[in-house]
C-alpha cells in the first residue's frame, strides 16, 4: 500500500467518522431521519456479525432489533471515542452473548436446531463437495467456545486488526493472541483433512 493510498484511506475514514458524529448530533437534536440513516449504514454489518457469532442461523432480525434499540436508547451517551460502527459492534457482541447465554440456560435443544437447518439444506444429495466443506468449516467454528469463536469471527471474517479486535472484546492484545492461537489449533485439529488437501 502506497503512502498516497494510505493517506486517502485515512482521510476517507476521518470523513466517515465526522459524518457519523454529525448524524449522532442530528439524532440528539431530534432529527427523525438521522437514526434511519444510521440503520441504513450499519444494518448489514451488524446483521452479518451477529449471524457469524451466533453460528449462521440465517435469522438475526431479533438481535438486530435489540442492537438498534440499545443504540437508539443509548446514543445520547455516545462520546465518539471510537467509530459508531465499533460501538454498534460492541453492542452486537454483548447482545449475542446475552442471546447465547439465554439459549444455554433454557433452550439447549434450540441451539442445535439453529445450526441444523443450514446443515440440512446443504446436505441434500445435490450438495457439492464445496458445500459440504463450507458446512464443515461453519460447524467447526460453531463448535468453538465463545471466547475463541468471537476473536476468530472478528479477526478472520470481519477482517479487523488486532487492536480493533482487542478493543471490541475488551481484552489485552496478548490475551487475544493466545485465544486466537488456541482457536487456530482447535480448527486445525477439526479441519485437518481439508488443510492437507
Amino acid at each position, binding site marked *: 500500500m502506497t503512502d498516497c493510498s494510505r493517506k486517502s484511506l485515512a482521510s476517507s475514514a476521518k470523513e466517515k467518522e465526522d459524518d457519523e458524529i454529525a448524524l449522532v448530533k442530528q439524532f440528539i437534536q431530534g432529527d427523525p431521519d438521522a*437514526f*434511519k*440513516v444510521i*440503520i*441504513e449504514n450499519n*444494518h*448489514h454489518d451488524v*446483521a*452479518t456479525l451477529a*449471524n457469524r457469532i451466533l453460528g*449462521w442461523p*440465517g*435469522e*438475526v*432480525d431479533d438481535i*438486530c*432489533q435489540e442492537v*438498534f*434499540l440499545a443504540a*437508539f*436508547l443509548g446514543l445520547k451517551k455516545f462520546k465518539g471515542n471510537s467509530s459508531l460502527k465499533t460501538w454498534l459492534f460492541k453492542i452486537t457482541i454483548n447482545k449475542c452473548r446475552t442471546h447465547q447465554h439465554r439459549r444455554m440456560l433454557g433452550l439447549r435443544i434450540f441451539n442445535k436446531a439453529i445450526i441444523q437447518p*443450514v446443515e440440512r439444506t*446443504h446436505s441434500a444429495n445435490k450438495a457439492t463437495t*464445496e*458445500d459440504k*466443506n*463450507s458446512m464443515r*468449516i*461453519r460447524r467447526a*467454528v460453531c463448535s468453538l467456545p465463545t471466547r475463541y469463536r468471537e476473536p*476468530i469471527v472478528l479477526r*478472520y*471474517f470481519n477482517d479487523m486488526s488486532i487492536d480493533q479486535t482487542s478493543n471490541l472484546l475488551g481484552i489485552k492484545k496478548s490475551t487475544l493472541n493466545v485465544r486466537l492461537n488456541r482457536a*487456530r489449533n482447535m*480448527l*486445525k485439529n477439526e*479441519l485437518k483433512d*481439508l*488443510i492437507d488437501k
Partner: protein
Amino acid sequence: MEKDELKNLLEQAERNISRLQLTSASEMDQIVRHRANRRRVVRSTLTFATVAVLLFSLSLWFSNTQNRKQNTQSHKQIASLEDQIQQLQTQTETTLKLVKEVLNQQRKRDRLTALDNELASINSRLLEIEAKTDQTAYRLFLTASQMYNDLNQKDSAIETYNRLINLFPNNRWTLEATKRLEEIKKQNSEEINTKGELL
C-alpha cells in the same frame, strides 16, 4: 498452519450461503422506535408502580407505627387503670374488713346488751322467787306458830318448823323457826322438870 491458509479456508465457510434477509431500514427504524416507546411506557409504568408501592408501603408502615404508638399509649392507659383498679380493690377490701369488724363489734355489743337484758330479767325473777320463797317460808312459820299457839298442836308445829328449816335453810324465817324450836324444847324440858317436882 499459516494464518493466510486459515483465512482462505474460513472464507469458504460463507460460500453458497443464502444472503441474509434483512428488514428495510425504515421498517427497522419504525420497529425500534415502537419498541423504545413501549419500553419507555413500561419503564414509566414500572416507576409509577414502584413509587405507588413504596408510598403504599410507607403509608402502611406509618399507620402501623401510629397504631403501635396508640397501642402503647392505650397499653399504658390500661396499665394505669389496672393499677388504679388494684388500688381501689385493696381500698375496698380494707374498708370491707373495717365494716366487717365494725359489724362484728356491733353484733357483740347487741349480744352483750341482750345478755345484760336477759341477766336483768333473770335477776328480777330471782327476786320474785326469793320473795315468793320468803312468803312461803313466812306462811309455813305462821302456820306452825298458829298450830303451836292457837291450836296447841305441838307435834305438828315442830314438824312444820323442821320442814321450814329443811326447805329454806338460808331464809330469815328459818332462824326464827330454829329459835322457836329451841324455845319449845326449853318449855318441854321445863314442863318435864315441873312435873317431876310435882310428882
